């Protein structure tokens, strides 16, 4: 990858990486650090990484960096605990509610659902990024969807 391609990777992917990390971690400062680390590592290895693989490489590195930070903080969240007062709020902005619920998913589920919905990655690609098998990714996505559905509550409200 040339420096020009590196800069192009910054322009094209930094927002996506940041959004992925921010939604996963929920902390702006730490998310910015994780993204900065990713690109520092990309720059260090700029000669070895092809531009076509940079996006997946960045997501993989970001995911690993994020996991390291979360492990250090020992941040474990109960899977099925819905956000407080979620059912008392009006369903005016479903996407906002979904993102609130997203923060309550465990790390594995949250990552795969973000990569699937935000980036449209296939099960195989998500598996490569997160280090899970394709079957495991599929199971996690199914469980995450059902957990989101369960958190949001009454189906009729959405329909």
């Amino acid at each position: 990858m040339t420096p020009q391609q590196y800069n192009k990777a910054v322009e094209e992917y930094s927002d996506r990486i940041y959004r992925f990390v921010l939604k996963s971690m929920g902390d702006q400062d730490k998310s910015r650090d994780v993204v900065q680390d990713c690109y520092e590592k990309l720059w260090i290895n700029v000669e070895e990484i092809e531009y076509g693989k940079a996006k997946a490489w960045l997501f993989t590195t970001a995911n690993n960096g994020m996991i390291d930070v979360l492990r250090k903080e020992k941040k474990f969240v109960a899977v099925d605990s819905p956000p407080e007062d979620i059912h008392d709020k009006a369903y005016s902005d479903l996407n906002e509610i979904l993102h609130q619920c997203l923060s309550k998913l465990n790390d594995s589920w949250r990552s795969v659902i973000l990569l699937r919905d935000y980036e449209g990655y296939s099960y195989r690609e998500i598996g490569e990024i997160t280090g899970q098998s394709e079957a495991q990714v599929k199971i996690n996505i199914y469980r995450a969807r059902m957990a989101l559905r369960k958190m949001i509550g009454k189906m009729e409200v959405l329909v």
Partner: protein
Amino acid sequence: MIINRQNYQIWITDYYDGQLDDFQTEVLMDFLSDNPDLRSEFEDYPDFFISPDEKAQFDNSELLRTPEQLTNDQVEHFSIALCENDLSEKQKQDIAELKKSDPRFRKSIRVYEKIRLKPDDTEYPDKALLLKIPGRRKTMGILFTSLSMAASIAIITGLFFIFNRQSPPGIDDGSAIATISESEAEQEIQERPPLLDLTDEMPRYIPAKTEVLVAESVSTPEIIEDESIILDKEFREPIIHLAMCEEIKLDDRQAHYLLAEIKPYNVPLLFATDDTSDMSVREFLAYQFRKKILEEEDPGIEQLKAWEIADAGIKGVNSLLGWNMELQTGKTEDGKLKDISFTSELIKFDHKSRKNNPGL
């Protein structure tokens, strides 16, 4: 295999199973012609085949499932699979049929179509800092090496000035004593009692009424004129002596430095100031570094940051080599380091301070 009376059953069985080709069939027929007693056995063989009883039927109605009998979990599973595009075309058609007949499918599919996250317009705020100038990568290593060297020079220089500070004007031995005639000076020196007893670990009281006195503070020396000394007013400036103090207040560490540096008539009392008397060595060095090297008006005593040392190094390199490099720092409202920018004729870059490691 040659047909004979021991294996002809195999040939007949294969014949009725359709396993014989035309030549083998012809061989079998020739054999039966030669053995007419076996002809009836060949012709009766099909009668021993068993046909399935078509009347026997199992009542499987209890096993069959209708869409209404699918559990809610199964409905949700198929709905998710449909939304994730995990179904084959045949399965999609089946679900489409089920969707018409089972309202649960309609609701569930609609819900899971909606439970899909949409990315918002979040942008990475530090994108500009990530961009690289082509060719910068190689020069950065050289730059940081230079900065490291400059920082080292700055530290050594700073420590040199701190620990070898010259006396204030007027108390330098060379200039002051030179104004006295040699005989007078020798006499003065011989009559003077020792300023400090260097054989002791700690400096003791300076005897009162010595003619060479010690300043209480370097920064604010009180200057008096000793009238006891005869001056040649035409050619010589009056000899200036500093005010006498009764006691030098030093802690053990400061006394150690003082004892190592002290000389008669030239006592660097750098440590005796009120501002620094209660500081630890680290705080003292940080304070003096900021005050003397960085020339800050209000120097703090907190631990020196890497960028401060680098800044001092850059200033030192500028003064030594005539370069025009500059290191600027931006700070937040609460005084924390926000970012650093470096400019020179060759290169310019910005670096954002990490929130988790503001000390760089």
